[in-house]
C-alpha cells in the first residue's frame, strides 16, 4: 500500500506541476485531469469509493471537459501564459513556498494525531455513511452550499452578460 500511495502521490504532483508549467492551456487542462484521477484512486484506497467515483465523473468528466471546450472555443492562439513576471518575484515566491513546505514538513514528520483515527475506516466512505454525514450531521452547511452555488451562478450571469450602459437622462 505505501508503495501504491507513493506512486499516486508522485502522479498527482506531476499533474499539478504540469498545470503550472505548461505554456499551452490545453496541456494544463490535461495535466489537471491527471491530478484528478490520481486523487480519485487515493479516495478509493481510503474506502471513500463514492467520493472517488464522483471525483472522476464530476471533475475529471465534466469540469475538465468544460475547460477544454472553453479553450477550444476561444481559439488556439491564446497568448502564452506565465511570461513577464519579474524574476525577483518568482525567486522570492519559490523561496517562501519552500519555507512554507519546510515548516509543514517539520510538523508532519511527527506521529499522527488522534483526529485522523477515523479516516479510512472500511465503511466510512460508503454511500450510506456519506448520506448520513451530508443530510443528517451536516445538513446546515450542505444547505448553505446551495446558497453559495446560487451566489456563484448569479455572479457568473452578471459577469457574462454584455455590459449595457444605462440610458443617459
Amino acid at each position, binding site marked *: 500500500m505505501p508503495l501504491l500511495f507513493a506512486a499516486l502521490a508522485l502522479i498527482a504532483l506531476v499533474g499539478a506541476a504540469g498545470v503550472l508549467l505548461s505554456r499551452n492551456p490545453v496541456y494544463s487542462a490535461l495535466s489537471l485531469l491527471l491530478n484528478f484521477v490520481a486523487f480519485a484512486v487515493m479516495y478509493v484506497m481510503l474506502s471513500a469509493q463514492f467520493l472517488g467515483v464522483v471525483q472522476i465523473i464530476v471533475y475529471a468528466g465534466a469540469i475538465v471537459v468544460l475547460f477544454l471546450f472553453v479553450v477550444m472555443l476561444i481559439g488556439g492562439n491564446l497568448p502564452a501564459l506565465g511570461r513577464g513576471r519579474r524574476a525577483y518575484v518568482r525567486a522570492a515566491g519559490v523561496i517562501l513556498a519552500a519555507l512554507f513546505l519546510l515548516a509543514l514538513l517539520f510538523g508532519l514528520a511527527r506521529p499522527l*494525531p488522534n483526529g485522523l*483515527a477515523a479516516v479510512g475506516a472500511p465503511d466510512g466512505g460508503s454511500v450510506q455513511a456519506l448520506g448520513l454525514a451530508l443530510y443528517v450531521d451536516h445538513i*446546515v*452547511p450542505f444547505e448553505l*452550499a446551495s446558497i453559495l452555488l446560487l451566489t456563484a451562478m*448569479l455572479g457568473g450571469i*452578471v459577469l457574462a452578460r454584455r455590459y449595457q450602459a*444605462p440610458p443617459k437622462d
Partner: protein
Amino acid sequence: MSLPTLDFSLILPELVVLITALLVLIADLLWPRAASRGREQAPAVLALAGLILAGLLTLLAGEWSGATLQGMLVADALARYLNLVVLLAAALGLLLSWSYLPHFSTQRSEYYALYLLAVAGMLFLGKSIELITLFVSLEILSIALYVLTGFHRGQLAGGEAALKYFLLGAFSSGFLLYGAALFYAATGATRLADIAAQNAGGFYMLAGLALFLVGLGFKLAVAPFHMWAPDAYQGAPTPVTAFMSVGTKAAALVALFRVVQAAGSVPVGVWATALAFLSLLTMTLGNLAALRQSSLKRMLAYSSIAHAGYLLVGVVAGTAAGFDAVLFYLFAYAFMNIGAFAIASLLERPGFYAVQDAGIHAADGLFGRRPWLAVAMAMFMLSLAGIPPLAGFFGKLYLFAAAVESGWAWLAVAGVLNSVISAYYYLRVVVGMFMAEPSASAHLRLPLPASATLAVALTALGTLLFGLLATPWFQGISR
C-alpha cells in the same frame, strides 16, 4: 435513525434576508421594467424592506440564549450584535446605492440580490460555530463581494480590482481550508465546541490556527494580507466599498474571536503576541500609506486598513471588555466610515464608462457650498481620527483601555501614536473644507439625492450620539 429536526426560528433574520434576495431576483418578472418608471426602484425597496424586517426580527427576538442549530450555527448575544452591525451597515450602504447604481448599471435586480446574499453570508459567518459552515458562509459573502466589486463593468479599474480580489481571495481561502483541515486532523472534529473540548495541543493546532489567521486576516485586510484592499475599495462602486469595509470586518472579527476561543490549547501568549504584531503592522502601514494618497476614496481605503489594526487590539486583549470594545467600535465605525464614504460618493463624478474618483481636494470649500454636508464630513473625519466627543474617540478609548487592562500597554501606546499620525490626513480634509476655496475640479452631485442625504444624516447622528451617549451604549453591550 431519524432525520434531524431543525429549529429555523434561530436563523429567522438570515432566512428573511435570503428570501428577500430571491424575491429581488424575480422582481423584474413581478414588475416588468417597462410597465412604469416609478417601479425602477422596486428591487431597492424590496431589499431595504427585507433588511429592516431582519433588523426588527433581531431586535424583537429578545435575548438570544445561545441555542444552536445542530452545533453549526448559534444564536447568542455576539451573533445578535453582529446582526445589528451588519444590517445597519447594509441598510446604509443600500441607501447610497439607491441613487448611485442607476448611473452605471441597469442590472438592479442582480445587484441587490448579490448585495443581500453578501449580507446573508456575513450574518451566517457571525453565527458559525463549525468549520465547514464557517467556510461556506465566508465563501458566500466573498463571492458576492467579488462580483459586486467589479459591478461597474464599464470601467476597467473595477474589473481589475475584482479580479485581484478574487484571485487573492481564492489563495487565502486555501490557507483557511488548510487550517481547518489541520484542526480536524488534531481533533477529529469540526465543531468549535468539540475542538475546544478535545484540548489537543501540538503542531496541528498551532499550524491550524496560524493558517486560519491568514485566511481571516485576509478578509479583515490585516497587513501583510491587506494588499488587495486599496485596489478593491477604490475600484468597487462606492456604496459597495462603504458596506463591505464595515460588514466584512465585523463578520470576520466575530469568526476570528470564536476560532481563537476554540483553539484554547494554543497558548494565549502565542496567538495574542502574533495578533499584536499584526495589529501594529496594520495600523502603521495603513496610516503611513494614507498620508500620501491623492484620491479621497483610496485614502479612506487605507484608513480602513488602519482601523482593522485598531480593531485587532480588542481581540489581542482577549478579555470580555476587549471584545465589548470591538463591538462598540464596530457600531461607531459603521456610522463614521459609511458616512465618510457617503460624502465621497457625492463628490464623485459618476460616469458611464468610468467613475472619476474624488480627489483629496474634492471636498475643498465644501463648507461654503453645503455647510451641513461639510459639518457632517468634519464629524466623520474627526471621529475617525479619534477626537472627542465623537463616537470614534470612545471606541478607541475602550479598545486601548481594555488593552492596558490586560497588560498590552505598549500596543495601546502604539495605537495612540497611530491616531496622532492619522489625525494629519483626516484633518487635512477638514481644513480643506473650511479654509480652502473650491478647486477647479471639485464637483458635487446636485441636487443631492434624498436617499444619500438621509444616509449622511443618519450616520452623522449616529457618530454624534454614539459619542455623547457612549457610556450607556457601552454598558448595554457589556451586559
